[in-house]
């Protein structure tokens, strides 16, 4: 009954979306204000219906209603409640429902906070948003109905893929979708602006917070996914350049470019059509990402044939959305005349370089991802494009980006003298060069990766500090005055510095772990020990834990799962798998550093083993132990890593997201959103 209600609510939401896509759009072009106003209640109703539908699906999963096909195929009565609920979006149909839920949520947010938007713009934005909704509601209802019933329900379900039974992955999709779908807001604003033929500072001030919010969510989502891969897949890799990962990384890169170029529109009323183009591109990559993940077409052409309807349907959405918006862009973009003028050396130019590098970097990822498909399509040959290609082809653009970033960030708007503007960066540059030289000397010239990476990390972090320092006139005025000035800096300045420093921290983690990681693979018997990078690892015992044993195991210092979240979020009670628990202890210079528990799990329902690496996290290194197969000659295969500064990769991502958050709370957005006078605030700050 409840499932049917959910299905019915979804159909109603689809119908409301159709009305919302048509009526306000017609109203806006005819100037009928009551038709335009319809968009607001429609957006609310659409969201509430979708939320109802989603709640019905969550309910079906929570109570293990195996008469619903989706639940029977993806859940199991013995699964911990946490994974019953998060399993709702651990499958195709449920994740698409989450997709539209977030889409309608953003629509409702615009309806709620959009009182200060010009009525025509608001009506058009909501109509475009609803048009996207229509396409995806139709996709769900006609090809991926999550509420389908089974005539003969099974006694128990097929269980969720064990690798997905993890807190990192439970919360990864919602964040990722907030990001993906959040970019639809920028898209809807861009299309609405093209229809209106007007882009001004007020428009940019409206679009930027949405883009920023989406980008923050995407950053956290990608970091969660990467961290999950790191501790769950069992070989300590954190990025595989897999098509599915690339699908989330491409919108992130373009969104990063977009939120920078939107600043130029907002402050200087230039780069308008370019910003519109980026907004369209960013969401297009979200759609392409959805297509890649949902159709499986990039993986192999054969996967496409497994479910041609879905693939073709998304491809059609893709063609209409991207083709339509680009046509509209080609037709209307020249009407968006630039006003602000800037010199070759200026903040604007710096942001143009930023945009160029981010877009080209995205292009590398895109080309590498679709290259095998293109080649197979053209001449039937099968080729591979893997991590070694991406590492080599992608990294140079990031290096260039990091080199110019601190300089661009200190340049003033309009025009500048490079020498004078960049003078505050001199100490940062000297120190970064010193880091480069020091690391190079320490490494005795083995590889350039670590010196360049760490030098750039220092340059980014110190450059951000120098920027804050010069803005607060540190050293030129008293310390108290400097503090006062720092406290009074706009949040956006803080956000900028923090986010850029976060990028530096990620550089540090990536370079250090790539260059200095050490690895050991061997057979160990209980009592054996060996030394890796100064740490002595000893295998104490391997204990079997039966199915149904308690989740909690005594005597392991290292937390299980994402920062121990597994225990906090209800991974407790009986294990729905059997376990081989390897107990290790680690000493350094005779002192105990950690006791690690590495688990090898076996999930009986899906007949699948997984590993839970034993990880001792630290600021300077992770100790990472994986228990492998039992050997015929006795003993266990054990793989061990010492990963220097690994956590800085994700710490940097979180700091970037924090910087975005600071920027989001800047006064100009709060004022702009709360007070019904957007235009008054729209004068360029210069």
């Amino acid at each position, binding site marked *: 009954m409840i499932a049917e209600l959910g299905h019915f609510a979804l159909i109603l939401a689809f119908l409301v979306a159709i009305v919302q896509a048509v009526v306000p759009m017609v109203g806006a072009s005819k100037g009928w204000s009551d038709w335009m106003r319809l968009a607001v209640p429609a957006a609310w109703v659409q969201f509430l219906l979708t939320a109802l539908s989603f709640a019905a699906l969550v309910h079906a999963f929570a109570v293990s209603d195996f008469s619903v096909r989706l639940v029977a195929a993806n859940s199991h009565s013995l699964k911990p409640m946490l994974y019953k609920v998060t399993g709702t979006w651990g499958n*195709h149909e449920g994740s698409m429902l989450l997709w539209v839920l977030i889409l309608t949520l953003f629509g409702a947010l615009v309806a709620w906070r959009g009182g200060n938007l010009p009525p025509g713009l608001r009506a058009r934005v909501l109509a475009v948003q609803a048009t996207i909704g229509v396409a995806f509601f139709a996709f769900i209802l006609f090809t991926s109905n999550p509420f389908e019933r089974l005539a003969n329900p099974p006694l128990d379900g097929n269980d969720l*893929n064990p*690798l*997905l039974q993890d807190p990192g992955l439970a919360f990864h999709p919602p964040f990722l979708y907030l990001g993906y779908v959040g970019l639809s807001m920028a898209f809807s604003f861009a299309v609405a602006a093209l229809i209106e033929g007007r882009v001004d500072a007020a428009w940019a001030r409206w679009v930027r917070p949405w883009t920023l919010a989406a980008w923050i969510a995407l950053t956290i989502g990608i970091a969660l996914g990467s961290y*999950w891969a790191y501790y*769950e*897949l*069992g*070989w300590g*890799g954190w990025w*595989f*350049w*897999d*098509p*599915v*990962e690339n699908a*989330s990384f491409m919108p992130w890169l373009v969104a990063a470019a977009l939120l920078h170029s939107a600043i130029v529109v907002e402050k200087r009323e*230039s780069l308008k059509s370019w910003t519109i183009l980026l907004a369209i591109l960013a969401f297009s990559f979200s759609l392409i990402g959805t297509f890649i*993940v949902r159709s499986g077409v990039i*993986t192999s052409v054969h996967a496409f044939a497994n479910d041609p309807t879905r693939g073709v349907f998304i491809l059609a959405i893709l063609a209409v959305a991207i083709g339509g918006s680009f046509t509209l862009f080609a037709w209307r973009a020249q009407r968006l005349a*630039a*006003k*602000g*003028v*800037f*010199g*070759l050396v200026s903040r*604007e130019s710096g942001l*143009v*370089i930023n945009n*160029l590098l981010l*877009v*080209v*970097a995205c292009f*590398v990822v895109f080309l*590498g991802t679709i*290259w095998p498909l293109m*080649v197979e399509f053209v001449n039937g*040959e*099968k*080729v*591979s*494009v*893997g991590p*070694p290609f991406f590492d080599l*082809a992608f990294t140079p*653009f990031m290096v260039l980006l990091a080199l110019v970033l601190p300089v661009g960030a200190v340049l003033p708007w309009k025009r500048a003298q490079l020498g004078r503007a960049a003078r505050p960066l001199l100490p940062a540059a000297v120190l970064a060069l010193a880091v480069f030289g020091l690391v190079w000397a320490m490494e005795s010239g083995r590889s350039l990766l670590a010196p360049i990476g760490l030098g750039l990390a220092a340059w980014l972090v110190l450059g951000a500090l120098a920027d804050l320092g010069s803005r607060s006139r540190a050293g030129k005025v008293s310390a108290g005055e400097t503090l006062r000035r720092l406290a009074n800096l706009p949040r956006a300045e803080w956000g900028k510095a923090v986010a850029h420093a976060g990028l530096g921290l990620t550089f540090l983690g990536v370079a250090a772990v790539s260059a200095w990681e050490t690895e050991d*693979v061997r*057979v160990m018997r209980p009592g054996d020990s060996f030394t890796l990078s100064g740490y002595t690892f000893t295998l104490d015992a391997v204990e079997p834990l039966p199915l149904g044993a308690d989740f909690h195991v005594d005597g392991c210092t290292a937390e299980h799962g994402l920062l121990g979240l597994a225990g906090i979020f209800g991974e407790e009670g009986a294990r729905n798998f059997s376990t081989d628990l390897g107990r290790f202890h680690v000493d350094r210079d005779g002192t105990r550093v950690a006791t690690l528990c590495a688990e090898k799990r076996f999930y009986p329902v899906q007949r*699948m*083993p*997984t*590993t839970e690496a034993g990880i001792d996290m630290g600021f300077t290194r992770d100790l990472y132990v994986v228990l*492998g*197969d039992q*050997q015929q000659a006795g003993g266990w*295969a054990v*793989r061990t890593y010492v990963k220097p500064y690994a956590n800085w990769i994700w710490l940097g991502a979180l700091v970037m997201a924090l910087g975005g958050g600071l920027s989001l709370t800047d006064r100009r957005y709060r004022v702009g959103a709360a007070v019904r*006078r957007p*235009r008054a605030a729209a004068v360029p700050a210069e």
Partner: protein
Amino acid sequence: MRALLVLIFLALAGPVLAVQPSEMLDDPGLEARARSISEGLRCPVCRNESIDESNADIAHDLRVLVRERLVAGDTDEQVVNYIVDRYGDFVLLRPRFGGSTWALWLAAPALLLVGGGIAALFISRQRRGSGRGAGPGGEANLSEEERRRLEALLQDP
């Protein structure tokens, strides 16, 4: 999101150890070379996994084959060629430069150059254009539309 990635991992290999201790060579130098070669070779039946990461049987066979060739005295390049001769370019995770792949390698740098050129042109043109269009004091003149909006703004309480 990762369901797909995960499904493939599942279908082909559980996430247990890839390189088995029994496969490894005693000579650490040769073993290190074997590992770095393995990282660049794709497991032919896997999805985007190198033979170094994969648990598939064929990945195991290829790892052993790589080590055999190294022990026999092949250079790294000879080992890679040996495998490519038998399994085709498909096993190379980093496509070779040349043939049709030059586009893959050069497209992005080319885009950067072209994009940079267009950007430079745009910046210099909009500066020159400003010399003619600017009113007194270098400020841009307001269009009719903007004048109207400015007035509306000023009247707004």
